[in-house]
């Protein structure tokens, strides 16, 4: 086990935080994908709901994810000081004190779950609560500093939004949102490990047991390839099971094929210099594009073939 990173980080300044610091605490860039997959889950559901309620559901998903991000930054303030990518966040930069971040995260998370339960339904609220707790307790507190498999299990937290969107519209969970959950869950390891391969030194310096730092680059590359195979199967499964039409099926097959090809390039690469890792950067960039387009195709399929 890698030793716990130092708890030292700067104390907050006497000047209180700006509203932009609260926004930064919610990790707005991560929210983009969460909101998009949540919205797609809502739109592809067989039952439509009033636009105001649909907006409320997506808002609750965004607020819940923002709360999880805030609580993650509250707990990881010490780690964030050690990585160039995160050193300017409100807590490590000393623009906000930890207690404020904790109150903000708990308040926002409680509000999002309460609003989802009152405006939509109890099932969607329960899954939202589980997703927040999963990200904060299971991923951030329990796994991230203890095992190189942190991303695999933690990836489930990012897979919940499509499930929540569907549950908000229908009040139940069916096979399609479960497959979408599996798709995002299996997409997360190749996505993050491609990134971890070329920013390996940053995570290693912070003492986070990311796969390349623990088992080496060779084993990580094989894991990237191994996770991509079931991910591609999960992506094509909705079409194979007759849950979607040809627009999604053909698009998902093509995109998953490209994903497999790029993963194979990473899997068989022997490049060890992060500055020269073009295949890894290509896979990371494509993985983001892939998820956006896959979910976009799902909605297009539902709208155009309805």
């Amino acid at each position: 086990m890698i030793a716990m990173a130092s708890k030292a980080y700067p104390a907050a300044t006497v000047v209180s935080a700006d509203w932009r610091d609260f926004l930064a605490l919610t990790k707005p860039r991560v929210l983009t994908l969460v909101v998009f997959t949540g919205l797609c889950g809502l739109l592809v559901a067989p039952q439509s709901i009033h636009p105001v309620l649909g907006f409320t559901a997506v808002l609750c998903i965004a607020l819940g994810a923002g709360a999880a991000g805030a609580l993650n930054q509250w707990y990881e303030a010490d780690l964030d000081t050690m990585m160039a990518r995160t050193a300017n966040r409100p807590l490590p930069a000393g623009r906000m004190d930890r207690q404020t971040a904790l109150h903000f995260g708990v308040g926002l998370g409680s509000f999002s779950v309460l609003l989802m339960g009152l405006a939509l339904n109890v099932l969607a609220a329960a899954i939202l609560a589980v997703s927040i707790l999963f990200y904060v307790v299971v991923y951030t507190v329990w796994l991230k500093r203890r095992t190189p498999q942190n991303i695999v299990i933690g990836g489930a937290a990012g897979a919940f939004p499509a499930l929540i969107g569907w549950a908000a519209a229908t009040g139940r969970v069916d096979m399609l949102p479960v497959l979408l959950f599996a798709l995002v869950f299996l997409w997360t390891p190749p996505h993050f490990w491609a990134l971890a391969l070329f920013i390996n030194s940053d995570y290693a310096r912070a003492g986070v047991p990311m796969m390349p730092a623990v088992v080496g680059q060779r084993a990580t590359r094989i894991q990237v390839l191994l996770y991509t195979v079931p991910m591609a199967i999960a992506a094509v499964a909705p079409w194979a099971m007759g849950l979607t039409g040809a627009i999604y099926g053909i698009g998902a097959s093509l995109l998953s094929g490209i994903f497999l090809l790029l993963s194979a390039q990473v899997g068989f690469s022997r490049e060890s210099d992060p500055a020269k890792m073009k295949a890894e950067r290509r896979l990371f960039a494509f993985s983001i594009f892939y998820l956006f387009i896959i979910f976009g195709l799902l909605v297009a399929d539902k709208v155009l073939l309805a």
Partner: protein
Amino acid sequence: MTFTPEEQTEIRRRQKSRALVTALILGGLVVLFYGISIAKML
């Protein structure tokens, strides 16, 4: 605790911007709750 004039100015500026954003959020929530109430009645 005493603050320098520059710190006081910065504190006031931040308090003002936070109060403004809070007011906008509260106003948005009023509209949202009204909308939810109407949508639930339909």
